[in-house]
């Protein structure tokens, strides 16, 4: 619940965001939903899963699913490089209060950035299926703020699927 409020708060009032790259674009998520950032692991694929679910990895003894954000956003495939990493995100808790992290493969991590509310613009209508909360203009480019839960739901993962 607090996470939820924090996230909403972040988008509405601004706050700290983690900015990362899915080349050639940049995206950001509220820092509160980021649990940790880890290097690329060997991923064990899962059969007959949605395409954007790459598989699972071993996170210190716990098995967590890993999503391929490029695929979920419909971008072209790209090989992992030595700066590719996995952002472990934490979204809403399940009915029984447990939080299952979901890893997201990104091409690289850029920075943690304070983003003020006033700088956030609404996305253009109908763009990106509703998982972009807003756009922010930076020096170099435009950063899209991702709404992770909606994105995951569209991939077929997320606690709302299975109680």
């Amino acid at each position, binding site marked *: 619940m607090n996470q939820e409020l924090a996230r909403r708060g972040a988008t509405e009032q601004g706050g700290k965001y983690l900015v990362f790259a899915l080349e050639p674009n940049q995206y950001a998520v509220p820092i509160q939903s980021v649990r940790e950032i880890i290097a690329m692991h060997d991923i*064990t*694929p899962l059969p007959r899963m949605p395409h954007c679910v790459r598989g699972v990895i071993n996170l210190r*003894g716990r098995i967590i699913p890993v999503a391929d954000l490029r695929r979920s956003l419909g971008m072209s495939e790209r090989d992992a490089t030595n700066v590719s990493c996995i952002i472990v995100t934490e979204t809403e808790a399940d009915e029984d209060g447990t939080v299952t992290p979901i890893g997201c493969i990104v091409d690289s991590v850029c920075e943690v950035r304070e983003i003020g509310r006033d700088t956030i613009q609404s996305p253009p209508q109908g763009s990106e299926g509703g998982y972009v909360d807003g756009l922010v203009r930076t020096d170099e480019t435009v950063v899209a703020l991702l709404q992770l839960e909606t994105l995951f739901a569209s991939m077929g993962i997320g606690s709302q699927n299975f109680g």
Partner: protein
Amino acid sequence: MNLSAALAELAASCKLAAEIPDGLKLLRSAANRLAKAARKLGEEDLAADADLLASVDGELEELLAKAALLAAGERLPRTSVTATAVSEDDALVDMLVVSMSDAAGNAEELLLALDADPGDANNLAELRRIVHTVKGEAGVLGLDATQVVCHEAEEMIDRAVDGGNVRPIIDPMLGVVDYLRRYAEALRAHGAAVPPPASQDLRDRIKQSSRGGSVPAAPKAQDRGRAAPPEPQTRATGERRVQLTSDALVDETLQDFIDESRQHLESIEADLLEFESKPDDEELLNRIFRTFHTIKGVAGFLNLTPIVRLTHTTETLLDRLRQATLTFQSVHVDLVLTSADLTSKMIESLAGGEAPFERDVERAERRLEQALRGERVDELGALPTVVNEALDKLELTSGGDIVASVPTPARIGELLVRNGVVSADRIEDALKLQRERAQAGQNLRLGDLLVELGVVSRDELERTLGGRRAASPVTSALQAVVDVEEAAEVAEAVTKANRRKAQVDATIKVSTLRLDALVDMVGELVIAQQMVLQDPALRSVKSTTLARNLSQVNKITRDLQEASMSLRMVTFRSTFQKVSRLVRDVAQKAGKKVELVVGGADTEVDRNVVERISDPLVHLIRNAIDHGLEPPDRRLEVGKPEVGQVDLRAYHASGAIVVEVRDDGRGLDRTKIVAKALEKGLLPTGTNGDELTEEEVFNLIFEPGFSTAAAVTDISGRGVGMDVVRKNIEAMRGRIEIQSKPGRGTTFLLRLPLTLAIIDGMVVRVGTQRFVIPTLAIEESFQPSARKAHWGADGGPLVDVRGTLLPIRHLSRLVDEPSDDEMGGVMVLMSTGSTRFCLQVDEIVGQQQVVIKNLGSNLPKMQGVAGGAIMGDGRVALILDVEGLAKGSQTSVSY
């Protein structure tokens, strides 16, 4: 103070105790402790002995002090024994809590057994003993309300025994069980100060059970016309004696029977004693056997059932000895002697003598049966009962002269013979001589005569007489304690019994959270250890000591894992017992007759599994009785036995636990289910369900929304619903299956993993990925070329395994992982409950135990994947679910 002296003092105090308020209570408590002391002596726990005796010392002193005051004409200070008893001993309260809970559990089991077989006298006697013990223990702590309840329950049981009508007491007794449980729980939570649960209702029920029953037995003659017992603490019913049927008494052959039996039994004591020293003497054994055999025969003819029973059991023992199917032990002689004695008494009662007490006969029979089964004969088990009995007698006669009102003590002659001091022949001679001398005017005591004759020394005589001197029932009973204490053999029996008891008692409470954490940590340790072992850096080190040490670590870790997993193993016993009780209650409410057959209660399974299966099981059983089974008259109409049967079984099968719930009732009606499903919108309208397999139709009842009210008479949920049942089972990675035949019954099969945590698996490889297959699902593996391949009717490949054609599935296709060579690799023959097939893989990597990890609840459920395992190199391998694989592949056979 040694034990014997303590007892002597106690005996003296008995007389005084009667005059002191609460004196009897103190005495009882002292006697209990003495009994404990005796037991501990048997265990050679001498340190404890000293403490107990010291406390007995104290109590006796108090008694004597009070007696002195009384004697001096002083008034006794008012002390409330109740107050001190309750407050001083938290440890006592704890013990009482455990004891009451155990008693409640045991009593419940007995009651359920009695429900099935009300004629079982042993169970009834055992039940009474349990209640009696609780009553006593409650008394020590001054828990009056409980004492009253137990006392009235005891009386109720006695009435049932007298009237032969056991059924009506079962419900009130279950009420007593519940009362005890509740009270024990309250005591545990809040200590001794907590008020007991309300019992007036219960007491009314107990009283009511006697209405329509028989009149309670008259109090014993030994009362000597005392006033009516003042409080419930004093027993109103007397000790029951053996009843022999009255029709026998008018039979003319009766007198012949009595005469002949007297003759037979006269020589038997001598025979037996001779036999003890000459167990090989067949003629002797035969003679003894024939005695009992003959008596049994005529007694049977005269319908003297108690005699028949006792002689029959004795005869069986003797027969086995004759046939050498039972090895002779000296205790057998005791047993047969006792039988002879009791039989003789019973026969004398036909001639106007006093019959022996039923309890004695029961005990004798019980001990005979123990000997027949080859078990240790119960010596000391009688001990606390003996003490309690003696004290009961005390209470009963407390108004009169205790010392005088005593059943005839053992004759000195018998005592001497029994102790092996003098042979029976000598006693005979001495008795004859005694008679002669008496006629000549010289009245000699037998003992003195024997000493004079030089048959026995004064010392020996004294010793044998020792117990007889202070001839009160308490002393004689407690003398038995002393005797027993000195018998090494018996002490051993005590040790064994206590050890058994100790095994049950010596448990320790551990928080389940800690236990689970421990088991998880051990699981992690196993994995980490594997990771170390598989580390390439380690492999490059060539050192035999290192290898040896690592191997040692490996072994210890595995042992640790097994041990920790076994900590969580429990049996189904308590769950099944709960079900037993439930069946009874539900059947009653539903007005149906149900017999519950239970199997495999000792099957071991992880504690978590047992906990989580409890509710679904209860639901299924309820359903079976409410809806599965027909009402009794309907069952008769369709030619079934009136009593419906519910089978509850647990067993291991291919690496899983299976729990079966079966009823022989109506069965599932396919058409009705389809109709219901259509009605509830669970099937697309317009279909008639014909295309659905039986399994699919039955599984419809698990759909949420299916459960409703009564329209569907074969199966209906209850709001709690079958969908929740299935959900619970599947959350445990289990499966629930239904089998049913209309009109014949329904079976629910619950398949559960042995433990929710770890499986033994075969690691296989396809392409770059590894997978774990539960070992128990694998029958064998072989090279593809070794067997001939065929093509099935549907175009799918088949392989011939020893005459059976089995389908082939390629794991590579099932998991979307390119194979090295689909035509090569290895074939793994998989089998589950319902399917067999061959799985083609690239390579078998090895076999290991893995900790099952969930893949994350936020992923869609995967058919064919049971979870993930972290391998030695840190990577994840998927654990395959064989049945899911098989099903999934069926839809994509066209590949």
